[in-house]
């Protein structure tokens, strides 16, 4: 596969490489080329097992070159590990894995095939959408470590996650709700066309026999809708009664059930009109709102799963010169822990040996990594970026920063007040009133000498007409449309009740890093001193995962059309300072000013920002200035929010200098700086004590506690983290401008709900009065019921226009 410019395609990963780095070989008279031993190994493995057709299925897609992972696999067979992740059923083991490196359906095919070929594996199913795999195997024949080894041998990686927690439960409820919804929609759609015949028949005349047939058909369709789809409300009403509360569910049940029973009575006695279609419609429409809530919860759980799996569950402890993998819960104070580049710290401690940069952005919000050396504090939740270090544990797991924040968070989550309760109480009074009025009507008419049957029909008509069609739809339809309009704008409401609270908010507390700013440095200034090959610089910075290197990679990619990676030699990552390498006997150096001065390179520069200087053979050729920049639209958004009459406060873990600088740029006057996670939460509590309704926007673990304390917690979607769990609303698109949209939307929805409630209460008041007096003929009841619902739905649909007119 010879290409132009001396580029060769690797036969496994299909990426282009320089001719001189490739491994060539001939197999069955075919010229093959590989970029590395890993790719070669996998190619042969697949060929030997007769799985060569994988490459046809991959087509023109490219794969990642295979990295030789020599991980210690013994941990998979440890007792603690299997207790945590493996479920046993009939002597078979089952585990949920997340498989890394899947990017097309051919990968899924290959993994499933290879695993199926394995003796002892009973079942494998891999989900292409979220890369989760379920594997069932016989522990007598094969060990888990062999299964993982098999996956690694074909170039993928797998790690276990705890699916027991939320995912399965969330999935199950979602499926169940979905089935119920589908049944409801099916019944509604079918009953509607029968109802049209009924209505037409009422005006143009219809023979009694046909009417009866239609009634029976409607009965058949309404029954599953009421009892299967509406089961949820029966359950809610029952639990409400058990706790001596009459709730909204009870109102829905009593209304629909009495209309349903009355309709059966009307069908059997062949008198009056039936209301089956109203029953079905009300149940289904209210249920759609409920379903959307379940759906958004499921989305949150999904993103949460892959995070909780990234929190380390075991650490390497060095004891008597030997390295042991130990569960985090078993680490004792004083243990020596080894950390490799890219590892997340699980336990607080003090650095013992080595030095390196730590990404602390998730705890302090600091965007630039911090350099740590001997006796510096190591905080859990931070990530070691570039070197192998050992440190002494100073706390056990439960007292470490990460764990204590999580624990506090879980406590406050369970204590979070439910706003819906108040709304439920109001509807409780309403339904109590309607029910007693119906009973009084019955007694009244019966005493006045009307026959038992007529008195019953009149009293039922009171309940039927007061059936919470409009009232029941007033809130859910408006919030439903609000939530779906929000979703299109990248606002994910976890429950619809939050729209209401948000509309009443008085104060907005913003985090700085990741909320007002991008949360990572960007190149703001570029100075070139002399001509040089940009590709060399690109290759150098590409080798590092430091945020500054990444920012330069992004900048170079945007600036230059074609970038090529050169093979550099002796790449060294000097902690918190820079990089050095060798290319064609030229020495390359890149890093901050201190680093270059250390290397005796003259660079006269002075900047308050982060600086990256690049030198070839001791001469500075170019330099970059980097800064954590404001998100687009931050200034306008904060101005707009102020115009809505809300107070804006900034709360950050950063130092005073940076905080003031950013605050001045966006026009915030009230600033709290150098805040620890607990301090932030205290500020929120103080504000709440002054009767403020607080919205908090944040993105990191450091904000999670504050988020859980505030009335409305908004998480930025980029850091799908513990914040997502603590938050009520997630901004998936990660834009600050969304905050203004969300506020505008919630106010509009709240207004609409108020209008709807006003209308439906007025409607109910008038019609109940008429019904009590016995003036309501069935047709009026039927038409007015549908009409009132239509008014409410129509009014709610107007919410959709909010973002259309500017």
């Amino acid at each position, binding site marked *: 596969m010879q290409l132009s410019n001396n580029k060769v395609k690797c036969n496994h990963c299909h990426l282009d490489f320089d001719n001189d780095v490739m491994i060539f070989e001939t197999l069955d008279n075919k010229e093959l080329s590989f970029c590395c031993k890993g790719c070669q190994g996998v190619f042969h493995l697949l060929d030997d097992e007769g799985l060569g*057709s994988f490459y046809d*299925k991959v087509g023109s897609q490219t794969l990642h070159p295979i990295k030789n992972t020599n991980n210690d696999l013994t941990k998979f067979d440890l007792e603690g590990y299997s207790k945590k992740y493996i479920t046993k059923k*009939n*002597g*078979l083991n089952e585990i949920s894995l997340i498989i890394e490196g899947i990017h097309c*359906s051919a990968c*899924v*095919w290959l993994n499933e*095939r290879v695993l*199926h070929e394995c003796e*002892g594996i*009973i*079942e494998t199913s*891999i*989900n*292409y*959408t979220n890369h989760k795999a379920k594997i069932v195997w*016989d522990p007598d024949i094969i060990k888990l470590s062999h299964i993982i080894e098999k996956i690694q041998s074909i170039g993928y990686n797998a790690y276990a996650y705890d699916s027991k927690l939320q995912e399965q439960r969330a999935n199950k409820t979602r*499926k169940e709700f*979905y*089935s119920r919804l*589908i*049944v409801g929609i*099916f019944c509604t759609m*079918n009953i509607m066309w*029968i109802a049209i015949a009924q209505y037409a028949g009422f005006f143009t005349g219809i023979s009694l*026999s*046909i009417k009866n*047939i*239609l009634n029976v*058909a409607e009965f*058949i*369709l309404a029954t599953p809708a009421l009892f299967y789809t509406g089961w949820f409300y029966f359950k809610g009403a029952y639990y409400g009664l058990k706790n001596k509360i009459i709730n909204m569910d009870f109102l829905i049940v009593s209304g629909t059930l009495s209309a349903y029973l009355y309709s059966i009575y009307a069908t059997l006695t062949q008198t009056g009109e039936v209301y089956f279609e109203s029953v079905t419609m009300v149940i289904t429409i209210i249920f759609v709102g409920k379903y959307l809530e379940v759906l958004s919860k499921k989305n949150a759980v999904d993103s949460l799963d892959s995070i909780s799996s990234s929190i380390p569950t075991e650490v390497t402890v060095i004891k008597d010169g030997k390295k042991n993998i130990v569960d985090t819960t078993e680490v004792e104070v004083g243990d020596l822990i080894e950390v490799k580049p890219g590892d997340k710290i699980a336990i607080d401690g003090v650095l013992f040996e080595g030095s390196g940069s730590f990404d602390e952005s998730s705890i302090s919000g600091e965007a630039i990594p911090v350099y740590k050396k001997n006796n510096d504090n190591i905080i859990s939740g931070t990530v070691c970026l570039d070197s192998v270090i050992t440190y002494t544990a100073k706390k056990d797991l439960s007292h470490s920063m990460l764990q204590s924040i999580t624990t506090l968070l879980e406590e406050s989550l369970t204590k979070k007040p439910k706003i819906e309760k108040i709304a439920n109480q109001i509807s409780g009074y309403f339904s109590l009133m309607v029910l007693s009025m119906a009973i009084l009507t019955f007694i009244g008419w019966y005493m006045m000498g009307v026959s038992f049957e007529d008195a019953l029909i009149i009293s039922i008509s009171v309940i039927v007409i007061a059936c919470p069609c409009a009232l029941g739809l007033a809130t859910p339809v408006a919030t439903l449309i609000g939530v779906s309009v929000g979703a299109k704008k990248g606002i994910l409401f976890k429950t619809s009740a939050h729209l209401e609270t948000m509309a009443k908010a008085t104060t907005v507390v913003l985090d700085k890093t990741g909320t007002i700013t991008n949360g990572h440095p960007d190149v703001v200034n570029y100075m070139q001193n002399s001509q040089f090959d940009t590709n060399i610089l690109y290759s150098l910075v590409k080798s590092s995962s430091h945020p500054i290197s990444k920012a330069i990679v992004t900048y170079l990619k945007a600036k230059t059309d074609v970038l090529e990676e050169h093979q550099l030699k002796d790449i060294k990552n000097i902690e918190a300072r820079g990089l050095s390498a060798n290319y064609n006997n030229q020495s390359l150096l890149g890093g901050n000013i201190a680093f270059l001065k250390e290397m005796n390179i003259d660079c006269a520069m002075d900047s308050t920002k982060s600086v990256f200087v690049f030198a070839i053979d001791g001469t500075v050729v170019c330099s970059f200035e980097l800064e954590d920049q404001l998100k687009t639209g931050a200034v306008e958004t904060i101005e707009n929010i102020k115009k809505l009459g809300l107070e804006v406060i900034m709360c950050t873990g950063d130092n005073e200098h940076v905080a003031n600088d950013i605050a001045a740029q966006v026009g915030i006057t009230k600033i709290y700086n150098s805040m620890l996670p607990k301090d932030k939460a205290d500020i929120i509590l103080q504000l709440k004590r002054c009767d403020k309704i607080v919205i908090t926007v944040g993105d990191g673990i450091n904000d999670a506690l504050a988020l859980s304390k505030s009335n409305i917690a908004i998480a930025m979607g980029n850091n799908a983290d513990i914040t997502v769990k603590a938050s009520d609303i997630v901004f998936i698109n990660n834009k600050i401008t969304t905050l203004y949209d969300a506020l505008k939307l919630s106010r509009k929805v709240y207004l609409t709900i108020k209008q709807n409630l006003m209308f439906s209460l007025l409607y109910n008041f008038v019609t109940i009065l008429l019904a009590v007096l016995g003036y309501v003929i069935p047709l009026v009841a039927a038409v007015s019921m549908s009409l009132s619902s239509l008014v409410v739905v129509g009014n709610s649909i107007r919410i959709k226009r909010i973002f259309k007119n500017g």
Partner: protein
Amino acid sequence: MDDNVVSAMLLVSIGLGSLGLCAFLWGLKSGQFDDKNKFLDGALFDGEDDLNTAKKIQDRKEKNLKDKKDNETKA
């Protein structure tokens, strides 16, 4: 229109509809819609070889489960 015709039409149409509904609910319950992408891409990997392998895997799975059961009853 004759009453019988109307009722027959209603019966047949609702019956057919519910048949579809039941099939859909069954599919949902047995997890056929869990993974949209795999479901759609399944059509791409549809050949004689793949069918044979699927059959082989199914057979082996049943055999494995049966062996396991036999062992247990013996023990």
